[in-house]
């Protein structure tokens, strides 16, 4: 081995030991700096991505019209194109109205944010949103979406936040099966790809009277999430020798996570 390579090897080993023994606080600070650095790229890239998608959609739409209305007059083509664009705006408007209505119905102080990057990691179910500490968002605060609980903030930098989705194994929530006294801890499932996301609800009674279709809501216990937030619907319940386990279908569509609401400040006491 060349002497220089030996020196680098020693430095490398020292570096690995240093990295592996960093305190969690220091690691979070490093990650915060990392997200603060890539934040502008993410925001800029996301805006470009949206513009490109709009452009491609427009092209696709125009081509579709061209094929279908080849024999019709040019003026008619233009009108259909305008109609298509109006429908697109109408649909967008309906989505935003639903989101606004959802926000108004919430009795919580929430900050609306846009998901600018979905699942950047290989194994971890995460997303990045376009609001951060500048909007009074800190680590650990819950994030909701039209449909129910979506996850919580992991790392908050000035302009962006990394959120752990409810479908990740590390996002644990204290929940109750609505209409029953059954409470348990719910989290995502690992290793399921190419299938619909499922959540697993543990620590239920051995012979709980739980039926498929029952709603699952947050208990508010433990100080992390507000109470009565919808999580999903029970798909399957399996009694066990020690505890019962239920599979839950999330009420939030994680494939189409566009606008989310971060609970900036809780306005009701938690259990």
């Amino acid at each position, binding site marked *: *081995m*060349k002497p*220089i*390579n030996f*020196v*680098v*090897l020693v430095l*490398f080993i020292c*570096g*690995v030991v240093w*990295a*592996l023994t*960093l305190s*969690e*606080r220091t*690691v*979070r600070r*490093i*990650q915060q700096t*990392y997200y603060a650095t*890539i934040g502008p*790229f*993410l925001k800029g*890239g996301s805006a470009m*991505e949206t513009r490109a998608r709009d452009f491609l959609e427009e092209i696709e739409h125009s081509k579709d019209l061209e094929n279908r209305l080849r024999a019709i007059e040019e003026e008619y083509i233009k009108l259909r194109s305008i109609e298509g664009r109006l429908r697109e705006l109408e649909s967008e408007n309906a989505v935003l109205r639903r989101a606004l209505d959802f926000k108004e119905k919430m009795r919580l102080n929430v900050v609306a944010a846009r998901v600018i*990057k*979905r*699942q*950047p*990691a*290989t*194994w*971890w179910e*995460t997303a990045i949103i376009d609001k951060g500490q500048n909007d009074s968002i800190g*680590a*650990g605060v819950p994030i909701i979406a039209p449909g129910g609980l979506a996850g919580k903030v*992991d*790392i908050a930098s000035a302009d962006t936040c990394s959120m*752990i989705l409810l479908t*990740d*194994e*590390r996002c*644990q929530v*204290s929940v109750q099966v609505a209409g029953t006294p059954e409470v348990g*801890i719910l*989290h995502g*499932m*690992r*290793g*399921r*790809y*190419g*299938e619909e996301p499922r959540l697993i609800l543990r620590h239920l009674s051995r012979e709980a009277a739980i039926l498929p279709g029952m709603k699952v809501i947050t208990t508010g*216990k*433990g*100080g*992390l999430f507000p109470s009565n937030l919808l999580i999903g619907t029970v798909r399957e319940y399996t009694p066990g020798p020690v505890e019962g386990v239920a599979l839950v279908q999330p009420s939030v569509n994680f*494939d189409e996570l566009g606008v989310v609401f971060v609970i900036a400040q809780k306005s009701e006491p938690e259990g």
Partner: protein
Amino acid sequence: MGYYHLSLFFLIVTACIFQQFVPSLSSLYDAKILLVPLVFLCAVVTVDTGPMLILGFVAGFLWDAQHVITPLPAELSGNPEVYGDPGGDVRFGYSIILYALMGLFMQGLQPLFREGKWHVSAILAGIAIFLYLSAEYLCLTFVRGDLIISRGLFLKISFTALLTMLLCPLIFWILYRLAALFHYTITYEGLAPDREAAN
């Protein structure tokens, strides 16, 4: 260490930024192109062991800064009576070791690459990505418990390795351009006559 090595460092940082915009393909079991490991794997066959370790440290460090979920501070982790076991996760820095191991694996066939047989290294990069993802998943399984292996998981790893491998020629082309720009010698043409002479 010269400008070429410095350019590799910038290439990895650039890959880190571009990685943010690579989407997961839901039709292929959430497979995606892993740019950072790809750039690292292609770059390490063009350099010596020392620079490989430095690149491995940088790439692994950035990778973990992006991916590893660090436990929240105790005051934000909820009541321990309710959330008794928050579950473990891999430690920050584990990727540095995995990157270095991948680098050593790639450098095993470095002489072939230096003879101009880059396609062997490209195939090896695909294998290295497959092994890397498998090792990463096993690390997660080891700390979290419950070994869960499914067909979807196997296909996700396989498609990710395959998609990433397909981009190898492009990365090698960039590396050759950078080498030419900074007058760095990747291919040792002198090896061929030496071998002929030996025969």
